[in-house]
């Protein structure tokens, strides 16, 4: 009986989290007529035309995927490159300084960034950063840096100090200690932090919308908004759903690829290693 309840609960949870995704998948494979007909007939009305429309658009949909991938990857790399040294330095500090810096970072991490996007737009105008994918990485990395530093410094602080001290006595330089001892041990934390940054830049909308206007440079989120708003008279549910499905495929692939590290990163510190 207990086993049965448990299975039911797990099924409910899965339905709760997977439901919207399955619905999108279903929508993306239906003709507009079939969608409007409701649950009438599941026998007919299946089509791949929505995908054809999205992929055959101008510019084609894979272009947006590529743009988002480039921006996401660069933002992630930039964030990690800056956050790892910061986090290391912070984790080796004690007392008031660490408390103040940590508090500042926390405040910055929880600040709603939407309030910043007008100011950021001004910055982009002044410095001529509009319509550049590389420039888009700057606000993304900047906005995700506080959270990344906080997460990574917690991971650094969790490593036993003797490991690094032992390496110091063996004559390792700072870089060698990071490269050979600390970072390999922090793999899960680095991967899960990197994925959070990637997810953020993948999903980010207001900055991408305001900084980029040339359609071949659009990232996924504003591009999908364009599809949804492309017609005044109808909402192209099918095409929109197809774009959503295509847009989440790379994320799913990433999650599957790093599944083990993510789970390890999330449960780090739960048990002694």
């Amino acid at each position, binding site marked *: 009986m207990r086993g049965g309840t448990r299975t039911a609960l797990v099924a409910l949870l899965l339905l709760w989290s997977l439901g919207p995704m399955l619905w999108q998948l279903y929508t993306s494979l239906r003709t507009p007529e079939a969608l409007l007909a409701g649950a009438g007939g599941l026998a007919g009305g299946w089509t791949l035309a929505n995908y054809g429309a999205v992929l055959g658009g101008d510019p084609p949909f894979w272009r947006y995927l590529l743009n988002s991938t480039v921006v996401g990857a660069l933002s992630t790399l930039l964030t990690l490159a800056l956050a790892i040294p910061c986090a290391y330095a912070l984790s080796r500090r004690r007392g008031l300084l660490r408390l103040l810096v940590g508090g500042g970072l926390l405040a910055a991490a929880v600040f709603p960034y939407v309030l910043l996007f007008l100011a950021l737009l001004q910055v982009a105008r002044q410095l001529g950063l509009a319509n550049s994918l590389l420039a888009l990485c700057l606000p993304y990395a900047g906005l995700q840096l506080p959270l990344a530093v906080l997460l990574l410094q917690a991971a650094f602080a969790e490593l036993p100090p003797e490991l690094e001290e032992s390496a110091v006595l063996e004559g390792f330089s700072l870089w060698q200690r990071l490269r050979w001892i600390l970072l390999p*041990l922090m793999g899960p934390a680095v991967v899960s932090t990197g994925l959070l940054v990637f997810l953020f830049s993948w999903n980010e909308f207001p900055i991408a919308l305001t900084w980029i206007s040339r359609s071949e440079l659009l990232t996924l989120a504003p591009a999908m908004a364009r599809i949804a708003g492309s017609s005044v008279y109808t909402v192209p549910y099918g095409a929109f759903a197809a774009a959503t499905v295509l847009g989440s495929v790379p994320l799913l692939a990433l999650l599957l690829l790093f599944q083990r590290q993510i789970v390890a990163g999330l449960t780090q510190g739960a048990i002694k290693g």
Partner: protein
Amino acid sequence: MTKTASLRLEGLCRRIGERAILDGINLEVAAGECLALLGPSGCGKSTVLRVIAGLDPCDEGRILLDGRDITHRPPARRRVAMVFQSYALYPHLSVERNLTLGMELRGVPPEQREQELAAVLELLQLGGLRRRRPAQLSGGQRQRVALARALLRKPQLMLLDEPMSNLDAQLREELRPQLRAILSGGRAPAIHVTHDQQEAMGIADRIAVLHDGRLQQCGTPRELYHHPANLFVAGFIGRPQINLLPQDDGTVVGIRPEHLVAVDSGGVPVRVRSREWHGASQQLLLESAQGPLRWTCDGNQEIGEELRLGWEPRHEHRFREASGERLGSPGRHA
């Protein structure tokens, strides 16, 4: 290749805020000698190691290794190897990589690396374990890997921080002679921190007793046992603990439990409170007019109801009660 070196600490002080963790430590360790730093937990003995290694700053005093002042040298350039209490093996690397990574990064050529690795694996009987991860090793094996890694550093000074405290009692006893052989085989001075006096006596040539950040006494195990410099050392060295009998003239008489003998007349009348029989010997806790007494005697000794204990005057230690320092001339043992 390694020049013989000796270590000298001159007035070493370390303070955290107002509190003195180390208060003017003077010590000398000769080349090839093994010194044990012994003391209760929190006495500062691990801090001495960390200051020598350069992991903790030194607020006052000097550290001389082979005559050169290394007090302010970065730890990486001191050529000091340390075996940590937790062993601090790199958990993501195999035994072999744990041992060779340091050599590789220090620029030791591959052939020499392979040679030295083979030699140290042989010395510490680790040959069959070279592909294992630290997590797949037993406590004793981890300790040997940590020791091997320290030896491969070719240190001018070897530091061991409670290297046995994570091992069970039987293993500790087995490893003690091994460790002693390896440490005395090297030409570098070694400092071994422990809170276990048996371990200190078994491994070290000399023992330095530390208490509250101050050096209490430094000498051979025999000197510490026969001529404790003060009440603290007298009470700390020797198990069971020495009997301390306060006198009316402000002095304390110390007499070791094994130096008490049953006498027919005279001596102190006592009553037996508890008795532990260990086979070859037995421990008794006795009640006397001067307070409780510990007595260690032969396992075959018959214990009667009425008992009087005495001791030979040459076994008597006298201390000033207020300062704890030793009074008068010591016994005849050297």
